[in-house]
């Protein structure tokens, strides 16, 4: 049975019984009350009956009016009492008793009236007595009746009272039962609620599998079932929630991975620091790559651990600012030292990441490496600055009215700024160029294109200026030209130079020697003349602007190629007659080649281009070779008999001869010596010229070398009484070819002796200065006439005063000396006042 029904039944029963009990109680109470009333009436009746009996006795003893009235009054009261209260007695017995009482009272009154009459009429005592007895008997009966009535009433009262006690007992019992039932129900309810509370606590504790026992079939059972159903539902929903949470978590992880991947692959350096001590907590790959530190190394540390003090202070300072700021802190430029890339420049933005209370939690930093941009910007700025210094810049409106000019423009145009601004650009027109040029210009720029050309402008003072001009329209957003910017370079000088160059080109073009011009440093062929094309077989248009093919020179001895390359690098001129070049058809030819570097204007080391001139000397070389072979052979054949003659004459000179004979023999001996010298010089020159003379440098002790040579001229010197002085530091060495040096110095010393005056002096001085060895050979001889000094090194040239000096000479010695000095990389020069002696100065690099 359900609790509701139970409770309802309990309430209903309780109420019903309570009402019933109250009614019963009321009834019982009413009957008690009535019984009490009746008892009272019965006792009053009894009492009056006694009093009537007493009053009658009194009356009989003392008849009188007063007694008579008292009795009658009493009797009347008694009768009235009976009449009035008779309805109270409902039960038949009592009602019978009351009726009898009433009858007795009435009969008593009648009898008392008879008595009174008998007394008052003096009736006999007997009659009176009789009457009195009867009355007494009747009275007795009446009392008895009254007592009976009282007893009856008393019994009724007792019964009612007993009933009341029963009723109270029954009610008490009932109340006990009710409260017992109620307590059972409430205990059931409280137990269930406790179980529910426990279940709820258990479930709240996380154990969703907990179930309540479903014992009863009432609402509590229902409640448990519902609770269990709810738990099941909860468990199910929890499971579903878990599944959802898991799904959501995995989605979140996926999202995180995605975000991580983005973060990792963003090319900018991204880092996160905690807001407290600014230690790194996050670090992406770009940051690793840039800084050269792995994140494992960075995370948990701060800037002081990685960067120089000044940088770290700067970074941390900006971090603090960014943390306090509500907006992005932008650091347009900051230097940072990296491990692999040296100092880099960053553009960094720092952002404070806050919690829900607005308290900074993290610092997010995003840095972009702007090193290259910065360099580019610097370059652009420098370019613009350079442009402003070198170019004439002006801006006009679309009608050609000048709105801006730079300083350079004013400088060249000679106009004051006030005059130019607001004027039309055409005021500077020279009028010397065809109108069609300007028509083309305007057509081009008004269509939004850039016009490029050369304009001849007239400055305020009338100077004509050629200007290499570029005019570009500045377009409005709608694409219409609103302004024009012109950038001009003054090229008057260049134009003039070009004209000169054209003349030069014409000259070169008609030259029979092949001319090649190579641009430096890109090595492209800038020019070749027709002679070059003829010689090499390559047409000009095939090679111009192309890279120089040095392989054409590939058959030249490596040593000579190296010398040319070195000369080109050093910007020095070069000469060789041993170049071997290949023609386009594959044939080779020997060339005499000269290279001259041409420097950039105003520079003495920046080569602008190389001019290479060559001529085919194959035929000449072949002739030279034949000549050399012939010379070599011929010289040997000549020398053998010459030696015999020379030695014979030399020996003959020692004999005792007549003066005349001696002179003859001496002349013949001198002639033979001269002949030997001539042969020697010719051979040497021949070797130099054919390139067979290859110096072999070694460390030469100069003092020994000079002494050796001096020994050979000793006899000659002695003859002319010439004093030779040698000043040479004993340890002075020179890295050069000893044999050739001997030839050079020997020649000069021989000349110094030969053309000296008798009793003159020859001084040889060797010194070392600035890495060069200098040898001066000074004589006190004839000197070299001024007018002939330029020709002194020519082959077979002999100074006019030497010829008249009665001295044998071939004009080959100095020529040979000059050739050999050049071959050894030295220099030779002389000073002579033309009358009193000559000083020849040799200079050689002391070492290689």
């Amino acid at each position, binding site marked *: 049975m359900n609790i509701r029904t139970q409770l309802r039944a309990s309430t209903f029963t309780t109420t019903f019984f309570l009402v019933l009990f109250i009614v019963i109680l009321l009834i019982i109470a009413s009957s008690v009350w009535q019984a009490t009333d009746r008892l009272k009436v019965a006792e009053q009746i009894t009492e009056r009956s006694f009093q009537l009996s007493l009053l009658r006795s009194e009356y009989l003893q003392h008849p009188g009016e007063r007694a008579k009235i008292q009795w009658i009054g009493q009797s009347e009261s008694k009768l009235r009492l009976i009449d009035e209260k008779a309805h109270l007695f409902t039960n038949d017995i009592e009602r019978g008793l009351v009726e009898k009482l009433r009858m007795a009272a009435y009969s008593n009154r009648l009898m008392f009236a008879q008595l009174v009459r008998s007394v008052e009429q003096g009736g006999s005592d007997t009659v009176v007595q009789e009457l009195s007895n009867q009355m007494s008997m009747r009275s007795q009966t009446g009392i008895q009746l009254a007592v009976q009535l009282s007893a009856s009433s008393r019994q009724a009262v007792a019964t009612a009272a007993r009933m009341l006690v029963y009723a109270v007992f029954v009610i008490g019992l009932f109340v006990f039962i009710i409260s017992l039932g109620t307590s059972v129900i409430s205990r059931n309810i409280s137990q269930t609620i406790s179980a529910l509370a426990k279940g709820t606590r258990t479930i709240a504790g996380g154990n969703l599998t907990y179930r309540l026992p479903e014992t009863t079939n009432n609402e509590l059972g229902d409640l448990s079932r519902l609770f269990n159903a709810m738990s099941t539902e909860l468990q199910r929903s929890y499971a579903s929630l878990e599944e959802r949470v898991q799904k959501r978590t995995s989605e979140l992880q996926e999202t995180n991975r995605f975000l991580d991947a983005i973060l990792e692959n963003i090319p900018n350096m991204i880092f996160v620091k905690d807001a407290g001590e600014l230690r790194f907590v996050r670090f992406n790959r770009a940051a690793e790559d840039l800084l050269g530190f792995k994140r494992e190394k960075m995370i948990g540390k701060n800037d002081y651990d990685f960067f120089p003090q000044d940088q770290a202070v700067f970074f941390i300072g900006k971090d603090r600012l960014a943390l306090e700021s509500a907006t992005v802190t932008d650091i347009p430029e900051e230097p940072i030292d990296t491990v692999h890339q040296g100092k880099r420049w960053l553009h960094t933005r720092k952002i404070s990441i806050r919690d829900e209370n607005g308290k900074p939690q993290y610092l997010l930093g995003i840095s972009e490496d702007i090193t290259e941009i910065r360099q580019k910007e610097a370059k652009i700025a420098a370019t613009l600055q350079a442009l402003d210094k070198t170019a004439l810049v002006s801006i006009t409106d679309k009608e050609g009215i000048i709105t801006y000019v730079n300083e350079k423009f004013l400088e060249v145009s000679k106009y004051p700024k006030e005059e130019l601004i607001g004027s039309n650009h055409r005021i500077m027109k020279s009028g010397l160029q065809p109108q069609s040029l300007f028509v083309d210009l305007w057509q081009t720029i008004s269509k939004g294109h850039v016009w490029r050309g050369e304009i001849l402008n007239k400055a305020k003072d009338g100077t004509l200026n050629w200007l290499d001009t570029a005019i570009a329209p500045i377009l409005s957003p709608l694409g219409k030209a609103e302004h024009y910017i012109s950038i001009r370079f003054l090229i008057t000088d260049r134009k003039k130079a070009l004209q000169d160059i054209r003349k030069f080109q014409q000259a070169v073009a008609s030259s029979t020697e092949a001319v090649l011009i190579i641009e430096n440093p890109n090595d492209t062929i800038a020019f070749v003349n027709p002679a070059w094309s003829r010689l090499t077989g390559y047409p000009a248009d095939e090679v111009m602007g192309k890279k120089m093919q040095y392989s054409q020179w590939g058959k030249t001895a490596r040593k000579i190629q190296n010398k040319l390359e070195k000369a080109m690098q050093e910007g020095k001129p070069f000469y060789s007659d041993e170049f071997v070049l290949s023609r386009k058809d594959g044939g080779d030819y020997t060339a005499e080649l000269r290279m001259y570097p041409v420097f950039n204007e105003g520079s003495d080391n920046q080569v602008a281009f190389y001019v290479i001139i060559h001529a085919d000397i194959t035929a000449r070389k072949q002739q030279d070779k034949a000549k050399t072979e012939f010379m*070599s052979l011929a*010289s*040997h054949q000549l*020398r*053998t008999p*010459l*030696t*015999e003659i*020379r*030695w*014979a004459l*030399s*020996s003959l000179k020692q004999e005792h001869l007549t003066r005349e004979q001696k002179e003859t023999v001496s002349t013949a*001996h001198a002639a033979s*010596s001269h002949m*030997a*010298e001539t*042969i*020697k010089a010719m*051979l040497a020159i021949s*070797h130099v010229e054919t390139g*067979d*003379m*290859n110096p072999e440098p070694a460390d030469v002790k100069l003092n020994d070398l000079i002494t050796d040579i001096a*020994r*050979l001229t000793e*006899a000659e010197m002695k003859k002319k009484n010439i004093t030779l002085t040698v000043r040479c530091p004993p340890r002075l060495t020179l890295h050069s070819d000893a*044999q050739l040096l001997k030839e050079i110095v020997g020649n000069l010393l021989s000349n110094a002796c030969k053309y000296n005056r008798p009793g003159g002096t020859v001084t040889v001085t060797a010194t070392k200065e600035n890495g060069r060895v200098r040898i001066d050979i000074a004589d006190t001889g004839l000197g070299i006439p001024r007018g002939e000094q330029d020709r002194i090194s020519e082959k077979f040239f002999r100074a006019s005063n030497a010829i008249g000096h009665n001295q044998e000479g071939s004009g080959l010695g100095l020529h040979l000396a000059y050739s050999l000095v050049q071959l050894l990389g030295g220099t030779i020069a002389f000073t002579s006042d033309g009358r009193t002696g000559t000083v020849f100065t040799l200079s050689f690099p002391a070492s290689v």
Partner: protein
Amino acid sequence: MKTPKKHILIVEDNEFLRKMMQKVITVHGMRATTAIDGKTAIEQIQDDPPDLMLLDLLLPHTDGYEVLKHRKENGMTFPVIVCSNLSDKTNRDRCKALGAKGYVVKSDMDDEQLWPIIEKHLS
């Protein structure tokens, strides 16, 4: 005790020049022996090694180079001055490589100029 005379071997096919050289040497108190070709020269340096040798290059039968080679191969150390009328570098270099200490062109000097050179190489 008198020091023994220095011994100089002259290898020269031209009889006149040979005699001139011999004269220059003997005048200066040295002992001079001669050979007219390379073959004889080799025999002589074997039998009687000189203190110095004057050597012509172009000789009959066995030339001066063979003599130089022989001297070098046999570990002889006396100095050799080549006296030739060949003056080109190739020959000079070849002689130098074979151990010649000096090289003179005969036509470029007088007989008496020979002595200072001999003297230098003997010292």
